[in-house]
């Protein structure tokens, strides 16, 4: 078992070495290797860009949903948990959680408007009247 664990660790090291080696490859080499592996480089690259865009969009959707309900979230205060990320509204303290892989959101912050927001603040528009 110890030997197996040892081999698992070595396999991990090997794969990590391959990962690192990819980063220092020239553009021509990575394009050639991708083509040789039977994959269309352009297509795979755009698929990868899409993965990045979708991740950004998922994060956007959470923030926009919270913002539309008037919740104030410190975008840097998301905590990592067992089921994705969670945080609380700075004003009313309600909770929200979202799962990174699916973008699924849950929590009481999504149930209602933040009623405590702006209770005492005077807005420029109101103040000018």
């Amino acid at each position: 078992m110890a030997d197996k664990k040892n081999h698992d660790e070595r396999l991990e090291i090997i794969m990590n070495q391959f990962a690192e080696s990819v980063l220092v490859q020239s553009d021509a080499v990575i394009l050639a290797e991708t083509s040789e592996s039977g994959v269309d480089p352009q297509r795979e690259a755009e698929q990868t860009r899409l993965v990045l865009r979708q991740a950004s969009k998922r994060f956007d959707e959470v923030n926009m949903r919270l913002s539309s309900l008037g919740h104030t979230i410190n975008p840097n205060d998301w905590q990592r948990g067992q089921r994705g990320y969670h945080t609380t509204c700075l004003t009313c303290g309600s909770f929200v959680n979202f799962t990174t892989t699916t973008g699924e959101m849950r929590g009481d912050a999504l149930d209602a408007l933040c009623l405590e927001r702006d209770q005492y603040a005077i807005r420029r528009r109101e103040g000018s009247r």
Partner: protein
Amino acid sequence: MAYSLPCCKPPEPPETLFPAPSRINASPKSALLVENDESLLNFLRRSLTDEGYAVRTAANSEEGLRLYRDCAPFAVVLIDYCVPQRSGIGIDYLAPLTHGIGLATAIHEINPSQGIIIAALDYRNAAEVPRPQQLMHIPLVTDISNFQLRSLLTKIEVERMIEMLTTPELLKLRRFGDFRVRGLGRAARGRTGEDLLSEALLRTLIGAGNSQKGRHWNRDVDFVRHLAGAMQSISNCWKRQFNETEAYLVSEFPKHDEDGQERSPLDNVAAGHAAVDQCLIEKDEQSRVLAMFDDDREAAQVLWGLLDGLTKTEIMSRYGLDKNKLAATERRIRVKLARKNGNRGEKNGR
């Protein structure tokens, strides 16, 4: 009297260490700020400058549009929702305020990918802010707190970087993620290289303005390197969280053999066999990887050498390979592993 130009070679341009700047907004960190309120202007300009932007300002929507037409593109355009149409006209707060939105619409029509932020500080939340459907995706600042703006600036910057990634850069990120996940073996728990990359980007956005949480992106670091570093630390974290004694799931094993035939991992295990678990465990990632190189002796030798902890020099010596042969073999291994990842297509174990 005829004049003739002396025949001579044009003078060589002086050698410079840096390329000559073209114009101010050629900087990748240029911002256009459209704000008429002096105190807000100073605050927002300082916020942008602190984030490393070279800022150009306009006090009304007409001037903003003129500046945009002359100097675009900008890394970001920040527009106050209540900005007047032109100078000298006071804001009538009882009238519908449309000039900030009008300017954002005009800029969006000129360049749909232009990063824009609207400061709607007169509204309690984004849902209250009237704006046309085509601008619904534009982020709003409804709170003057610095962290909201800073986070949006990073988001726009990250989105810009995503669009600027070249094909080879994207392929490198893809391969990097695939190899890292493959190295995790069971600890990957069915996650793929795409999941790893996606998580790396999310952590970047979450750690936008805070080096203590998420994965803060230091703008001096190349974006590809940053994402690779994030993937590395996330995969290490996944590994640490994994409990070696977790039971194997049937879904963790390949459902198709090398010929594409569907197989159950239990197909070849006799009923009542005493060591069913052991039979399954043997079919782990290492065996799968080695099995891929059954028909390539040199590749199998190199992999075994690496698994035995040999250095490259020791591998060359043991198997009689020269440097070029070793490099070519490593390349074959990478290509074949990439093909294997690509052929999987589906999410492993899901």
